[in-house]
């Protein structure tokens, strides 16, 4: 006997047109500006439901196939200015407005990470983002070295998240379990690149903060977005031993995702119950790994060329946390323990490539 749960399909068409222009006002001042017009139609066949405070369906409107259920349009202006301070130095400032019609819902529990994408509907308005950014750019040593430092600030409207107690699996009425509010994100991005030479590569680092404020979640206070990453660092290095043999290394590090862990516990009716405080008030362990790749080219003068790659993904075999669950201790009665599950450690591979 099988029980079938069918989540309703949602169909939509998104269209856009844009116009932009670049103007060079003086040798040191140029600007790019334009506007994008986006149009989003949710189309049937489908049913729109109205819900009461208990998330129960109280009314519905049915739509035929191809019938427009709801429509949104937005103008998305964008402008950027480039000020050249010297041959190697420039400043940049920009403003963008963006409309996003697909929303990502993430469950903040660490027990089972699940992401759901939902389109804008009659109940879910598009996300609107206003972004300001400023940047400083400088090249060194005859453009061998590129350096940039950028800052940004985003204001986000109609960001959505699950309400407390929302069912996150097989929820046929997910729209009833969503609340909308505002978000903000700001940060500083550092970038340094060496373009030429036996040793080349780049370093990028971002320091940022992304948070939401939604009435009904976290007592209406600001809380970290699930994908907020305070630190995000990438170091990429390539070294050419010869014109056939090279080694590349990539080291990635970022702050763990924001998650909701229990802060205490109690018993009710003899059963253990976890007690929660703030939404996304904790962090998964930081993520970092090193990838190595040794590349060997065959004879490049042949018609059929081959090469080999010997790689090690996660070369130092770090078990980055995929999920963290909680359970009664297996060794100490009455105690609770946190268990980290990692998917895999080092993944070596050998690749043979042929080009003809």
């Amino acid at each position, binding site marked *: 006997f099988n029980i079938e749960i069918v989540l309703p399909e949602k169909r939509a068409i998104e269209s856009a047109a844009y116009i932009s222009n670049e103007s060079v006002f003086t040798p040191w001042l140029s600007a790019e500006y334009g506007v994008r017009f986006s149009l989003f139609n949710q189309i049937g066949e489908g049913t729109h439901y109205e819900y009461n405070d208990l998330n129960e369906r109280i009314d519905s409107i049915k739509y035929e196939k191809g019938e427009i259920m709801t429509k949104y349009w937005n103008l998305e202006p964008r402008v950027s200015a480039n000020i050249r301070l010297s041959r190697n130095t420039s400043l940049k400032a920009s403003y963008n407005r963006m409309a996003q019609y697909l929303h990502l819902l993430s469950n903040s*529990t660490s027990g*089972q990470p699940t992401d759901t994408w939902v389109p804008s509907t009659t109940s879910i308005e598009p996300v609107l983002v206003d972004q300001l950014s400023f940047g400083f750019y400088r090249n060194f040593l005859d453009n061998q070295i590129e350096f940039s430092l950028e800052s940004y600030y985003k204001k986000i409207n109609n960001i959505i998240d699950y309400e407390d107690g929302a069912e996150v699996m097989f929820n046929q009425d997910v729209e009833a379990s969503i609340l909308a509010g505002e978000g903000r994100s700001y940060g500083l991005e550092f970038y340094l690149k060496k373009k030429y030479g036996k040793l080349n590569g780049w370093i990028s680092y971002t320091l940022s903060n992304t948070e939401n404020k939604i009435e009904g979640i976290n007592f209406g206070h600001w809380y970290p977005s699930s994908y907020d990453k305070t630190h995000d660092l990438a170091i990429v290095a390539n070294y050419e031993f010869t014109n056939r043999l090279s080694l590349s290394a990539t080291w990635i590090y970022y702050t763990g995702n924001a998650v909701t862990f*229990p802060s205490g516990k109690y018993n009710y009716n003899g059963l253990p119950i976890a007690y*929660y405080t703030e939404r996304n008030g904790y962090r998964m362990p930081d993520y970092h790994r090193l990838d190595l790749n040794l590349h060997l080219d065959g004879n490049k003068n042949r018609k059929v060329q081959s090469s080999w790659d010997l790689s090690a993904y996660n070369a130092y075999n770090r078990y980055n946390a995929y999920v963290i*669950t909680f359970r009664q201790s297996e060794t100490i009665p009455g105690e609770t323990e*946190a268990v980290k599950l990692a998917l895999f450690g080092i*993944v070596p591979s050998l690749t043979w490539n042929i080009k003809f």
Partner: protein
Amino acid sequence: MKKFGIIVMFAGLLFYGCEEVIEIDLNSVNPMVVAEGNLMKDSVAQLNLSYTRDYFHKEDPVYITDATVILSDENGITDQLIHVANGFYRGSHLKGQVRTDYTLTIGLEEGEYSGETRLLPEPDFFSITWAPSIFQRPAHAGGSSDTVYNVTLTIQDDTTEVNHYLLNFYTPSSEPRGFYLAIDDKYPLPGNLLQFTTFMFEFYRGDTVGITVQSIDEGAYWFFNQMNDVIGVGPSGFSTPYNPKSNLGEDVLGYFMARSRKDTIVFLR
């Protein structure tokens, strides 16, 4: 120009997962008041009061022994619950009467907390039947070789009230259920009958099945549904983590509820 490549991965290493017990530093939080209040029909009120405790370590509960607890009914009659031991309080003379509203007030140093409930009439059993389960798994698929029986309970709904019921089906050897079975009266069968069948339990011929049905108010019904999301020591993964809503205010965990109860036993012959 065509390119292709052959990748040989050491697949065994690829899918080698790892489970490890780790230490997590939890935020320091003020303990919350936990209240488990019950008023049964024809009985005095009882209340268990304690604080939440450290999440990871085994600690003795921190009982609240100095609260001022008053039960009052809609007619203004009051009864003070006296602390007996280990955070357990009991009333003396005000007993639960059906179709009556009650208020429990808890006075603590932190503040005063108050919750309301209504005691509804005990359920009226219309019939209890049992039959072989239509969902029994075949023995070759891991099911029992003995016939599994389901018990069907039918309740005569009281249409003068909005009713909710908490059900429990058990045998003498049953392990405590890790969830609550709560139903409402929104979709009765003809004749205002409410029916429930124990598809999720397995009973066998010769079993003595105990059935307990408690009438609860709507607030308690939603509380038990929410408790199903949070029972256990950690997030279930099926819902976003949260604390079930208490009728004693935002600063209290737990619930105060009035219930009437009916028990019976059936022998599966």
